């Protein structure tokens, strides 16, 4: 068999998701945002929800998510995506409504909206990209920044006296009665990506079946903010991030 025999439409087993358009993404090389975007685009199409989905973008690196996945989107003010999503879902209860937020957006300026939306059990999904840093504004300290980790606003490393402690908001989410499914995943290997996809799909299905609110955290890299290469960023994440942010389902009321 030659290469030409194999490269045929009927033999295609994996490609860029159909809902993802050809616009080149603005993310830095190797950024986890891209992988999660692909998963979101794949799942919406696999669920046949193209005409029934409302996505809410954050302020942060994913502010332009609407440029890449061809569904209807609203771009929210910094931190307010869960409030925007709450109204969309309450007013359109047969729609798939999700937010896509970074750690600064979700766990700092928007903590209030995040907690209350989850605690009310809004039938939505929050996709939470935790890269332990403010990517978009150039690598400042985030609430999720690890102890000792250096950022542009804690250049000597995060220390408790000065900066307090890393906020594990996903653990808090799991303790709220309103949440149905809370999971923490990553997207640095093929098997991790498959699990992350299952988690997001499960969350989306819960949202559509009217079961509680759903949060999927993706422990992510930000090679630019971390000032390293994409490959080294993945290694650093495995070594340091997973210790504090443990991968796995924290709560699943559907398949306990």
């Amino acid at each position: 068999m030659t290469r030409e025999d194999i490269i045929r439409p009927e033999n295609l087993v994996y490609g860029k998701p159909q809902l993802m358009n050809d616009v080149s993404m603005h993310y830095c090389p190797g950024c986890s945002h891209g992988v999660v975007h692909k998963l979101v685009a794949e799942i919406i199409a696999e669920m046949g929800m193209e005409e029934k989905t409302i996505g809410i973008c954050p302020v942060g690196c994913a502010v332009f998510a609407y440029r890449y996945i061809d569904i209807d989107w609203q771009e929210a003010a910094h931190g307010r995506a869960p409030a925007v999503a709450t109204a969309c879902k309450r007013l359109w209860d047969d729609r798939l409504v999700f937010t896509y937020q970074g750690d600064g957006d979700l766990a700092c300026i928007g903590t209030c909206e995040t907690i209350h939306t989850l605690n009310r059990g809004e039938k939505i999904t929050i996709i939470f990209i935790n890269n332990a840093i403010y990517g978009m504004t150039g690598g400042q300290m985030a609430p999720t920044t690890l102890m000792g980790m250096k950022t542009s606003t804690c250049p000597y490393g995060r220390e408790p006296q000065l900066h307090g402690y890393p906020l594990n908001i996903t653990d808090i989410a799991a303790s709220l009665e309103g949440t149905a499914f809370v999971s923490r995943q990553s997207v640095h290997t093929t098997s991790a990506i498959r699990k992350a996809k299952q988690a997001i799909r499960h969350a989306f299905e819960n949202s559509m079946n009217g079961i509680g609110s759903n949060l999927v955290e993706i422990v992510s890299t930000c090679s630019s903010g971390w000032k390293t290469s994409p490959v080294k960023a993945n290694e650093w994440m495995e070594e340091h991030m997973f210790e504090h942010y443990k991968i796995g389902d924290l709560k699943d009321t559907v398949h306990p």
Partner: protein
Amino acid sequence: MQGAIEINQERCKGCRLCAVACPLGLLDLAKRKVNRKGYPYVEQHDKEKCTGCTACAIVCPDGCISVYREGGLRRAKVPQQTTPEVFQTAYTESEKGNQLPHPEEAQSSQEVHLMKGNEAIAHAAIRCGCDGYFGYPITPQSEILETLTQLKPWETTGMVVLQAESEVAAINMLYGGGGSGKRVMTSSSSPGIALMQEGISYMTITEIPTLIINVQRGGPGLGTIQPSQSDYRQATVGGGNGDYRVIVLAPWSVQEMADFVDLGFELAFKYRNPVMMLSDGVIGQMMEKVILPTPKPRRTEEQIAKECPWATNGHGLKGRKPNILTSLEMIPLEMERRNLEMQKKYAQVERDEVRYESYQTEDAEYLIMAFGSIARISMEVVGILRSKGIRIGLLRPITLWPFPEKEVARLGKQVKGIIVAEMNAGQMIDDVRKAVCGSTKVIHFGRLGGVVPEPNEIISQFEQDFL
């Protein structure tokens, strides 16, 4: 040879995550080569060894790699497909509640009720097909949320009522609800409205129609729970960032509180812009006779799709471009273009939507200008001064923006002086001065911090300055 890959090298950013993922190590950066964006890109070597395992493509954040395998998807694991119909069971109720609020009342809609201004707003909202109310309690307007929760419209019209966790959340719920094409509203009082300014700014540039009610109280800060009009400037020139306007309606009676709900929604959707009803604690709390609007149903999905083709609700997505509501624009020229479009719209509003009411201005030698609750007191002032033989009239702006500039300019040439009565330190007076442009003397009467004046206070100020 079992598999093959194609790499979109123009999309590649050279992150090398695929190279790490490939179990056979067949990928690496092309030596000393970059694509048109300036990124180094990957190449596959020993192509015949590729098994088409998809590992490289799965990890690629930019979706650059397509994988082909002998036998194609027949041999690959096919992702589980579903259709949205699966989920319909949970939502057969979705279009359910769309009855008229009170069928028996529909006939007797001319019936006169006695209620507070705040309560009238709640009744009017349900009756005029409002889809959702989102708000946070604050005096002196909490009766709006309280009345709505008592009336339970979600069981009749299907209207959503939600107590938000803050005013910040409430205004962003409006951003979401209005953006998806629904008729949504919130209400608050001065300190809460201050918190909403960010959201209002976002809704103007994204052209999201919503209704915001401010039942004003005295400030600054927590101030007092007593009535005030000190948010005039914030409402009419915009308290958030950017060059924007909201249409501002100033009711002076419980009847207008009820009527301006529907009018507010009509204007909001006509111009795709937030509308603010600027009321105050006097009108919110006072009991008065009111004829409630005739009930009409909420719009169906088809009607919304027709009226709001811009709305983000997924409707008909496969046959159109995605709808995106965003305020962010990286190219200044494009941002300028969007701003200019907004300004064009505002010019049209200024031309077509000015509303005011005048009393005995035809023969007036003096004019009193006032809006909202103090305009009622000013009516009494007109009566008392007329009985003393002074020819004075009242001009009451109903739209504070657009301001009745032409009528004020016209009267400015007719009268010897204008007294502007406000429950603030002099805010509307700036617009009056601008309109008359020096053609007549303009003086201010004001009580601050939540004090409601008596007619004789206005009269003594008038006599002191003009007689």
